């Protein structure tokens, strides 16, 4: 069974049609990245799936449950999911370990507190008050609180905003580890390299509609698109778009009789493809 199943999802705020008929299936154990510019309907969609927002139309099933429902069934459902919101900042008068321990008490089968603290790399800060943490450390605490309940499905809303490159790599490793445990993850992010590194599939959303769903390497015909070959010929930098870069490189190798000066062969990056899809061109 799919972890998330959405058909014909619609949501408007007055005259603004934030979500206009979205279909989405996310398999169990999959990492799915939802990409889209601000105001594309990303947050609205995710918050409907998380049970924070109502919808105007369409069918939604998250772990076999309609997030619209309330009462005890909703508690059982929330026991199986984890949510890392975009921005949370507590008053901060509790320590890291106190907070995580307290949240672990909300769930029927929580993960081990020390293990979770270790997996988000906060061991040295376990006894610190939250208000003394840096922005990146707070974000890691958010993630710790999202996974403490040992969720089957984890929502991550722009999890690495404000991270330095090293912290992002460490975070990606954590997500890979969760994937290893079979956790399904729905990720929204602004970082295309993050989506590429983590996601099995990406969905691009704009103006409340899904433009395409594909693997990061295949999105927008990326894998079959032309390659760009550039090299130096005397004082000029030459470039050529081609379907057969190997043939071109072979030709250049014989022309230069060996090493081709400043050779590069590139295919469009995920970012190039993404920007083209949402109607912006790369600078």
């Amino acid at each position, binding site marked *: 069974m799919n972890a998330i199943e959405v058909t014909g999802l619609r949501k408007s705020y007055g005259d603004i049609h934030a979500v206009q008929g979205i279909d989405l299936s996310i398999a169990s154990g999959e990492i799915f990245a939802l990409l889209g510019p601000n105001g594309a309907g990303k947050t609205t969609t995710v918050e409907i799936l*998380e049970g924070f927002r109502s919808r105007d139309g369409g069918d939604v099933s998250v772990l076999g449950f309609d997030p619209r429902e309330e009462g005890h069934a909703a*508690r*059982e459902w929330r026991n199986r999911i984890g*949510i890392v*919101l975009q921005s949370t900042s507590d008053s901060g*008068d509790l320590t890291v370990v106190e907070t995580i321990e307290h949240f672990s008490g*909300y769930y*029927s089968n929580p993960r081990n507190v020390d293990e979770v603290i270790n997996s988000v790399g906060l061991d040295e800060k376990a006894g610190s008050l939250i208000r003394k943490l840096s922005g990146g450390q707070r974000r890691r605490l958010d993630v710790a*609180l999202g996974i403490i309940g040992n969720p089957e499905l984890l929502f991550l809303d722009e999890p690495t905003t404000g991270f330095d490159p090293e912290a992002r790599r460490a975070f990606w490793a954590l997500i890979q580890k969760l994937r290893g445990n079979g956790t399904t993850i729905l990720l929204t992010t602004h970082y295309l390299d993050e989506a590429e590194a983590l996601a099995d599939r990406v969905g691009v959303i704009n103006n409340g509609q899904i433009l395409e769903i594909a693997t990061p390497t295949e999105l927008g015909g990326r894998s079959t698109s032309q390659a760009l070959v550039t090299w130096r010929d005397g004082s000029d930098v030459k470039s050529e778009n081609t379907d057969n870069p190997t043939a071109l490189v072979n030709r250049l190798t014989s022309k230069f009789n060996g090493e081709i000066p400043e050779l590069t062969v590139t295919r469009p990056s995920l970012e190039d493809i993404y920007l083209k899809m949402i109607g912006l061109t790369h600078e």
Partner: protein
Amino acid sequence: MNKIPSALTLGIRRGGLEIRQFARQRESVIFTLLFPVILLLIFGSVFSDTIAPDVTFSQYFLAGMIASGLVNTGFQGLAITIPLERDFGALKRLRGTPMPASSYFIGKAILVSVSMVIQILMLLGFGVAFFGVAMPSDVNKWITFAWLTLLGSACSTALGIAFSVVPKSGRGASAVVSPIVIILQFFSGVFFIFTQLPTWMQQFASIFPLKWLTQGMRSVFLPDSFATQEVAKSWENGKTFLVLIIWLIIGVFFSVRKFKWDRD
């Protein structure tokens, strides 16, 4: 598969957490707990007259201060701090966990009760030590005191949670909530003797719980002979009970139906 903890268990744990958090905010501990005592010291020292045989203004004021303590720690405290928690996103995060709303409310009620008990003990201690307030010897008076405090805290907590949807932001909450409380205190016979207030003020105050709480507290801490000095010539404790119950129901109803976890 274990079962999810019950709402009550989680509520009690949240109460412990709320108290720990509160105790670490030194400014608000001092403000909430010490402020009424300081007011008692000032008013008690300035107005030391006798207002009836065997009744000093300090005694009258002490009853009022205990009643307003219930309003301060419950209604005022919660209606100011909950919007802040909402702004921080802390409430939305809680909403995303299996913790039910009732546990959050229970936690707040525990916080209010504990700070209330500390505040009452301090007020009574200072009242006895400095202003010749005598502790009632009649068991019935203590029973009245117990249900007044219990019902008063519950009512104040529920109304504070209910009112927390009114301030648009955490920063503006204090500006919305504090004037309401201060005006009610003036109108309800906390700072002045109630019967000396203009009739329209008395009638307005009679709609709200604070007037009834102060009157009830006077029935505990002032001699029974003073009852004839009240507006109705009696303590009207039955009516007080009824008014508090009605406000409690209103508070719980709106808390459950209208509570906002999210900013927008």
